[in-house]
């Protein structure tokens, strides 16, 4: 208990509220959402396009805040997350929870009113998926939590696309599926060379629960699945050859990077070079793939390809 002689605690710094939104995750969300919006057939007024991306970013930020509010106790037990505003004691949990709810509700409301009901509904769905489905329900219960969490990161391009077209077709669903399948090899390659404290706080991560060998095989399986999926937008006629050829090359390199990761075993004193290479390339892959999606749309609009 605090006593009457204790002075008021300092009001929480606004930078700590900002940190709750996971700004680094938000950059990827904004980028993929923007690519979905720019690659979609049709026009959207720049103000409304900006609003749509802002809402996606704020919804992701609100979800991040609610995630940190729910996991504050777990974060306290892990070195990587112990300095976050809640476990470090720089903010009270109620403020974090209310901030997260306000961002989520506000972003869904503005998206629904300014852009459309479907885009607003998808944003709400992505928030519920991440906060309830992933953070609260499945993350502490299944070693496939990364696969499920990948779904949350896969929503932004889908929402960006729907903000322009107003309907869900095969193309935005494929963009969703690409990020969904990309996430496990991206994260598990990192998990192989970075020692995390997840086991200490009881989160069942695949490398800990099922072992390294299983994780390596799963990386290979997901990477193999990613290749046809990434090329599918071209195959169904949703994009032109600019995207199709780029997707084929990028996905082939991705698969080539994951083969040594999938087939080898960690030796004592291992530098884990193949795993580090795959992780680095996976980031480049996603940015390049979605960048090429926009370039393809531009090429089509300019008449450089049919």
């Amino acid at each position: 208990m605090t006593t009457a002689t204790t002075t008021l605690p300092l009001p929480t710094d606004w930078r700590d509220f900002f940190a709750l939104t996971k700004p680094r995750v938000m950059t990827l969300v904004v980028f993929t959402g923007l690519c979905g919006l720019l690659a979609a057939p049709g026009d959207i007024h720049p103000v409304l396009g900006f609003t749509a991306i802002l809402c996606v970013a704020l919804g992701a930020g609100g979800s991040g805040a609610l995630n940190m509010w729910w996991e504050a106790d777990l974060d306290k037990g892990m070195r990587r997350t112990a300095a976050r505003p809640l476990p470090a004691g720089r903010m009270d949990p109620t403020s974090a929870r209310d901030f997260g709810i306000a961002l989520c509700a506000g972003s869904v409301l503005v998206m629904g009113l300014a852009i459309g009901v479907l885009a607003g509904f998808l944003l709400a769905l992505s928030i519920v998926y991440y906060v309830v489905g992933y953070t609260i329900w499945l993350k502490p219960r299944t070693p496939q939590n990364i696969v499920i969490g990948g779904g949350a990161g896969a929503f932004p391009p889908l929402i960006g696309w729907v903000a322009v077209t107003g309907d869900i077709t095969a193309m935005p669903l494929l963009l969703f599926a690409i990020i969904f399948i990309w996430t496990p090899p991206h994260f598990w390659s990192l998990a192989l060379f970075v020692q995390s404290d997840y086991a200490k706080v009881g989160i069942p991560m695949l490398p800990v629960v099922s072992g390294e060998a299983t994780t390596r095989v799963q990386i290979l399986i997901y990477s193999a699945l990613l290749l046809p999926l990434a090329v599918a937008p071209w195959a169904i006629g949703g994009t032109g050859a600019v995207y199709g050829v780029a997707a084929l090359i990028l996905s082939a390199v991705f698969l080539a990077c994951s083969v040594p990761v999938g087939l080898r075993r960690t030796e004592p004193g291992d530098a884990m070079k193949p795993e580090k290479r795959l992780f680095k390339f996976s980031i480049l892959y996603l940015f390049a793939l979605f960048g090429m999606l926009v370039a393809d749309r531009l090429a089509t609009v300019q008449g450089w390809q049919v």
Partner: protein
Amino acid sequence: MTDPISPPSLATMSATEMEAWRARQKSRNRMMGLVMGGLAILFFAITIVKLGASTQGAV
């Protein structure tokens, strides 16, 4: 959960503590003002765009 905080006791603060407290409060207020101002401009712009679209037959 945090423990309940005793009634506001600004009076018990030293001058330095009070200064830090006010500075933090001021920076929060400034940021809140910027966010509110930004939202007001955004909502105005959305309204103008929507009005323009509806007068041209599309919503």
